[in-house]
Each structure stands twice: as C-alpha cells, then as structure tokens.
C-alpha cells in the first residue's frame, strides 16, 4: 500500500539513504531497525511525504506522494515524532483537536463533532482523563499518548451524515508512522506505548511503521522488520526470520544471543560480547 522504491536522500553533500526500498502492506506493523545515522528517521520522513526523495519515489496505493494534496494525505497518514516540545501551554484536548486541521477550511472553527472525534481519540489512547491538563505538565509517556491521539484524530471523517464516527471498527488504509516512540521513555512507559501501538494495529486495523533502535521493543510488537544500515536495506521480512544474530552483528557489529522468551512471548536480543573484549 505504502511503498518506497529505490529512494535516495541526502542533506548537503552526504547521502543518508542510498536506494532503499520498503513495502508496507495494508494492516501490517513494520519495524524499521538500524543504528544511529542509518537513515531511519529520513526514511520515515520520505514515507510521510514531509521530505521528497532525490531519486526513486514513494507511492500510496500506486499514486506518487507528490501528487497527493497535503491535506488529503494528512487525513490518511499521520506521524508521531520522537518527542514533542511545545512552545506554548496548550491543553491535551487542544493538542488532540490539532489533528482536525486537515478536515477544516482555512477559517473554519472546529464544531462539536470535531470535539467528539478528538475526545474519542484521547479515550483510545487512555488520555481522556487528562483532557484539560496542560500538555507541558504531562509525563513523557502521557505526552506520547496524547500526540498519538492527535494523530488518530486526523483520520476520522465526518462527511457521512455529519455524525462523529470514531472509526472504532477500524478503517483499513490509514497509516501511522512513529519515530522512536520509546526512546525518551523509561521501562514502564515503554511497555505502555508498546501495548497501545499493538492495540491500534490489531483492533483498529491501522497500518503502522515504527522506527526504533530498540531491538527488544521491535521484537515485542512488530510482525515484519526492515533492517537499515548506511542508508541501505540489508534485510527485510517477518520478524522471526529477520531478527538473527548474524543481522544484529551486521547492523551493530555486536555479537548477540537471539532467542524466544517464553514469558514475554517474543524474541529477545541479548548482546553477549563484553565491553573491551
């Protein structure tokens, strides 16, 4: 559905992506793994259409992203950045309502239906009790969930009779891109966000792409992986086939033990090389 074909991108003279290809199928939950500087975030920006590839192309259902108006794209595809620092004190509900931007005309004020959509999105991420709190007073995990709610609010359409459909049944075809969603979070909030991401994929049918360098986080939620190194895709496929000691070594230059953890219910990666050895 969302596809990057042979894309390259660089800042200045240095290429960050060198002919990377990624296919994201409808309803999938894909993890993009790689060391720092491997081009994960850049790939996400290209998939989101906020940057354009120097070579190659990104398509959504076969249409080049360049040809899709940005507001139309925003109603189908949402991005959650690694961290959000607000310059001003908005409430959590204000943040969720910002997701309604692509649904409103230039001078249109959001109506009760938009508020309903925003509150449903907050409910879906467990942040509805915080709706009147100032965003800057939230914990890292709460912030991340409020931003995910704002992204969800981008999707709901009101055009069928004007009633606020929360899309609880799930609408295939909507895509959420998350950049290092757990990088700034402690263990508790990491699990909280991991659970939320898995639920959004399983219950709402959202297609999700997650960039991360946290191998265990990726192993715990992703069904497919794309391994990036130096701007190239070195492997892609189901998590069980892709997350191997050989690939971990190729990505990070570290010997690691990869095995299925019974209690956790997913593959786990433990580096085995000692520091200095």
């Amino acid at each position, binding site marked *: 559905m969302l596809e990057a074909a042979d894309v390259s991108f660089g800042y200045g003279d240095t290429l960050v992506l060198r002919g990377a290809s990624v296919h994201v199928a409808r309803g999938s939950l894909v993890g993009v793994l790689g060391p720092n500087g491997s081009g994960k975030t850049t790939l996400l920006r290209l998939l989101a259409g906020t940057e354009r590839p120097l070579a190659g192309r990104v398509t959504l259902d076969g249409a080049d992203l360049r040809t899709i108006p940005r507001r139309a794209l925003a109603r189908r595809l949402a991005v959650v950045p690694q961290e959000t620092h607000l*310059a*001003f004190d*908005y409430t959590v509900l*204000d943040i969720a309502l910002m997701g309604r*931007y692509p649904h409103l005309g230039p*001078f249109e*004020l*959001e109506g*009760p239906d938009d508020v309903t959509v925003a509150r449903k999105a907050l409910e879906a991420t467990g942040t509805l009790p915080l709706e009147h709190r100032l965003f800057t007073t939230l914990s890292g995990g709460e912030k991340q969930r409020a931003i995910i709610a704002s992204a969800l609010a981008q999707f709901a359409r009101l055009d069928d009779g004007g009633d606020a459909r929360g899309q609880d049944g799930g609408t295939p075809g909507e895509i959420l891109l998350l950049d290092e969603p757990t990088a700034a979070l402690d263990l508790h909030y990491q699990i909280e966000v991991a659970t939320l991401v898995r639920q959004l994929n399983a219950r709402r049918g959202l297609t999700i792409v997650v960039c991360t360098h946290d191998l265990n986080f990726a192993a715990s939620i992703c069904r497919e992986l794309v391994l990036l190194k130096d701007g190239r895709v070195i492997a892609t496929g189901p998590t069980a086939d892709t997350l191997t000691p050989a690939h971990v070594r190729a990505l990070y230059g570290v010997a690691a033990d990869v095995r299925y953890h019974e209690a956790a219910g997913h593959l786990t990666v433990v580096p085995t090389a000692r520091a200095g050895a």
Partner: protein
Amino acid sequence: MRTGTTRSVRQRLLSTVAGFGALALAACLLAPVVGSTRISLARVFDRSVPFAENVDAQIFFVARLPRTLAGAVVGASLAASGVVLQALLRNPLASPFTLGVSAGAALGAMLALTLAVPVAIGGVTAVPIASFAGALGAVVIVYLLATVRHRGLSTEVLLLAGVTLNAFFSALILFVQYFADPAETFRTVRWLMGDLDVSSYEPIVASLPFLATAFAVFAWLPRPLNLLALGPESAASRGVNVHAAQRAAFFSASVATGAAVSVGGPVGFMGIVVPHLVRLLVGADHRLVLPASALFGAAFLVACDVVARTALAPLELPVGVITALIGGPFFLWLLVRRR
C-alpha cells in the same frame, strides 16, 4: 490554570473579542478627554465657535485624538506582531524587534533626522518614510540570510541574523551619532524612546494600507501558528503548508512592525508584555490570543500614553519610557516564572 473549558472555540472567541474590544473602545474614548489641561466636550463639539478660537477643540482634535489613534494603531500592531513572531520562532520571549526591524527603522529615521532630508510624500515627513524603508531593508536582509542555504525558512538563522543585524545597525547608529550635533542626537534619542506625539493624522493614515494588508494575513495565520507549536514536521504531517505559513507570518509581522514603528518609533515591550498577559487570561490558542492581543495592545498603549502625558505634567514623557518601566520588571518576572 484553566480547567474545564468545555465551551466551544466560537463562544470563547466571541466573548474574548467582546471583552477586549470593549476595553480598547473605552480606552480610545476616554484618553482624548483626559489630560493636563481640562477640556469640556461640550465646547469641543460646539460648532458656534470657530475652530481657530476653540482651544478645547484644538487640544482634542490636534493634540490628543491623533495621539490616541496612533497609540491604538501602534499598540495593536506591535502586540499582534509579537504574537505572530513568537509563534513563528517557537519562542515566547521573542518580540517584534527581535528580527532587526526596529534597528533598521531606527537607522532609517536617524539618517533622515541627521541629514535633515526635506522630502515629504502626501504630508508624511521624511522620518516615518525613512524608518519604514529601513525596517523593510532589514526584513529583506534577514529573510535572504535565513533562506539562502535552506529549503524554506530556517527559524534559527532568522533569530541569529535578526539579533546580529540589531547589533550591527546599532553600531552604525552610534557611528553616525558621533559626528552629529547635539540637537540631532537629542531628536534621534527621543525618536528611539518611542513617542506618540504625532500631531497630525497623515502618518497614521499612511500606515493604514500596510497595516490592513498585514492584519488580513493575521486573520488567516492563527490555525497554522497553533500547529507550528507542535514543530514544523508535525505541522506538515497534519496538512499545514509550513513554508507558506512561515513566510506569511514573517512578512506580515515585519510589515506591521515597520509601519507601527514609522508612526510611533520603537515602543518597547509591547510585543512581549501584552501577548503574555493575554495568554494568562485566554490560554495558548492563537485564534484567541491574536485578536485579543491586538485589542488589548491598543488599550494598553493608549492608557500608557495617558500616563506619559499626565504623570509629570506639564512635562510629556515619551510613551516608550512608561512601557519600558512596566515591561522590564514584567519581563524579568516572566523569565523567573518560566522555571
């Protein structure tokens, strides 16, 4: 902290505009009546006395009314520009003068004063024209610097270029001042303080087309500015044309600031004090903050000017002294409050 604001944006917008609008209207109606000389409104509007002999009417129409209108126009423009630039730079401590506009305007005004340029266009003297030209010159330089090596507008470069240009233009001003005679220096210093003693309607009228254009853009800006608070990338992924919004914000705020400064000089702290007071009252939503700041800015500067005219009567202080005396401590309090 505001809690439980479940009223719709429309309701809040209406009550905000009504409240601050009433305040601005009250300030503008009261200010011309108040002053060191008592005037009678009955005599002001008494048609039976010829204007040349009607001192009350002269005070009202020649001295106080243009001053009040200038205060309203300048206050509204500087406060609204402050809101827009703070949102653009994602920095609540930015002011309309952060990006070099005031220094450019000051350089223009000082050159016109020092060289005693005799040019006047349609009743507008050289100083406002030169200061507006200087402001636009600074705007263009800063804009070119911020775009030359970036796709779109780099707000970091914008900020650094503005601060540097401010310092450089100030150096140029001091350099020219060194060779100027004391009378010229005094007039320049007086201009730099910000003074609403316009004594005629022409500069106000001349600034209106520019201000009207800027405010028309301001009407469109609040929603993109709200989204920009999330960061340019998040805004873009929600459908905002970030580059267009940034350019519109930069140029509209710069033109409004340049036009305001050409009327009243660089009246300090308006663009910081007013937006922050307004945010304390109405929250962060720019759809409320922008119109409320414009209206409150008008009321605030008109009120400050009344104080400037009357506090040490018959001496008239430049209004910039009053706004700085209020704004300085307020700004420091703000810094400390922001953890």
